[in-house]
């Protein structure tokens, strides 16, 4: 688990003037922010506003054209992601980070059992005891409310909501400190969404996870995040505490976004 007392006053992830352009098209420009341990940041905006590009740069899957991202490693040193070797980056990605895809099929191995899906990261860091791997996988399945009796079923036999929960378990099994989520509730029906959000909120609190959640759904942002960044045309146009931004939006675009939610 995260050591809350010593590390929490130092930033976990620092983005400085990040930009990505494809020729003359600027997908994302001039994004700077700081993320602290245990903090959940939501990035909201309409399709094409640069949210996903930003997330890919933050998670070192895409090299930025300008600016840089730094991450505080477990040894407490803040390092630029661009300076990490590929081996280190990939190691980070499967130990200290999690990445929850919108489509679970991208984040899971659909043909192997749920137990192996959860256990893969453990085996990748050298766990070599079948009994322990299986036990850990089984306890994680229960934590994400999947019946442990289904541990040997392949995720292709699971429902959409179960797949998404399995994907979360697979990511959290190595106790990462930072999780990236790309539209984690996209494509799920409303009641399943509500359960999933509830689960994610309790896991984030329990584990003291930091998370960056990309979503176009303001309800997700409100339920999960502490802070919100509103993006439009590749720029951050408004940022602040979630309640502040959503209850009292300053920018006209944010006002439009907020007012476009149907009243309950």
């Amino acid at each position, binding site marked *: 688990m995260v050591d809350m007392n010593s590390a929490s006053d130092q930033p976990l992830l620092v983005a400085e003037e990040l930009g990505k352009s494809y020729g003359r098209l600027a997908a994302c420009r001039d994004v700077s922010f700081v993320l602290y341990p245990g903090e959940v940041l939501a990035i909201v905006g309409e399709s094409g506003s640069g949210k996903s590009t930003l997330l890919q740069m933050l998670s070192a899957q895409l090299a930025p054209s300008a600016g840089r991202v730094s991450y505080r490693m477990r040894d407490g040193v803040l390092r630029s992601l661009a300076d990490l070797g590929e081996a280190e980056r990939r190691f980070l990605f499967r130990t200290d980070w999690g990445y929850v895809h919108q489509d679970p099929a991208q984040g899971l*191995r659909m043909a192997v059992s749920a137990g192996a899906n959860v256990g893969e990261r453990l085996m*990748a860091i050298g766990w070599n*005891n079948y009994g322990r791997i299986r036990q850990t996988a089984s306890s994680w399945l229960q934590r994400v409310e999947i019946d442990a009796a289904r*541990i040997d079923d392949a995720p292709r036999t699971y429902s959409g909501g179960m797949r998404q929960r399995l994907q979360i378990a697979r990511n959290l099994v190595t106790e990462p400190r930072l999780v990236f989520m790309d539209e984690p509730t996209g494509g799920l029906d409303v009641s399943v969404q509500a359960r999933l959000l509830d689960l994610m909120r309790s896991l984030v609190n329990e584990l003291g996870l930091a998370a960056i959640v990309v979503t176009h759904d303001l309800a997700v942002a409100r339920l999960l995040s502490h802070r919100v960044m509103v993006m439009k045309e590749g720029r951050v146009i408004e940022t602040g505490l979630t309640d502040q931004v959503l209850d009292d939006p300053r920018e006209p675009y944010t006002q439009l976004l907020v007012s476009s939610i149907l009243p309950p």
Partner: protein
Amino acid sequence: MNAPTYNFAYLDEQTKRMIRRAILKAIAIPGYQVPFASREMPMPYGWGTGGVQVTAAILGPHDVLKVIDQGSDDTTNAISIRKFFAKTAGVETTTSTEEASVIQTRHRIPEAPLREGQVLVFQVPIPEPLRFLEPRETETRRMHALAEYGLMHVKLYEDIARFGHIATSYAYPVKVNARYVMDPSPTPKFDNPKMDNCPALQLFGAGREKRIYAIPPYTSVVSLDFEDHPFTRYKFDAPCALCGAEDSYLDEIVTDDKGSRMFVCSDTDYCEGRQAAGHRGVENAAPHKEGAHG
């Protein structure tokens, strides 16, 4: 004039040099799959085009060649490859493991211990051990480069979860020289321990996939497993019905349509050698009358 119009051992010298360079690189990096410009051979893919090219590249006029297919010296595949080199290189051929200097094999390692100076050439259909777990070749190469082999254990995990034990019985993944995970070609896992610290040089050729890899003599080869599910050899629990051997890998032979079967050594040379030395199995009361074939 009907003089042969091809070079010694069929391949031209430039091709052989190219293959030898790949072999040298493979020996320098044990277990690493070296790409090479695989040629078309006068036989279909899947019949050992990779093994034949490796053998052609290393064969010299004084070599003695043995070819086995599933342990047997007298199946179509083994006989035709042996004849191919007898014709194109004029080398001496044999069925005896001890006498051979180059042994080309499909799916077996001979029972008789190999010695220094011998070369074992494997025919490999699919060289990539991660293929069925990760279909992208770009990704598997990166995984090899960074020694990310967690996925290999996922396969073994699945076996145990499904069958209660590691049910992979052939092409059982090994780690070579504590670095690269390698597919030992579809040899039964019974043969895996023979690869470890073997005095002979082991070369692997995959013709269709255009890869060569190698295990130099006296290299550590460890079969992957779990602490609580260690690697075990597998064989039928019976002695050979012809020679009575208890320590050899057995083939199951169905003898009628009423469920009768017998188990015999898969390595024919080993079995015949034992019979010639007077060992008898339960189904071999009469002395073995056939002479050694060749």
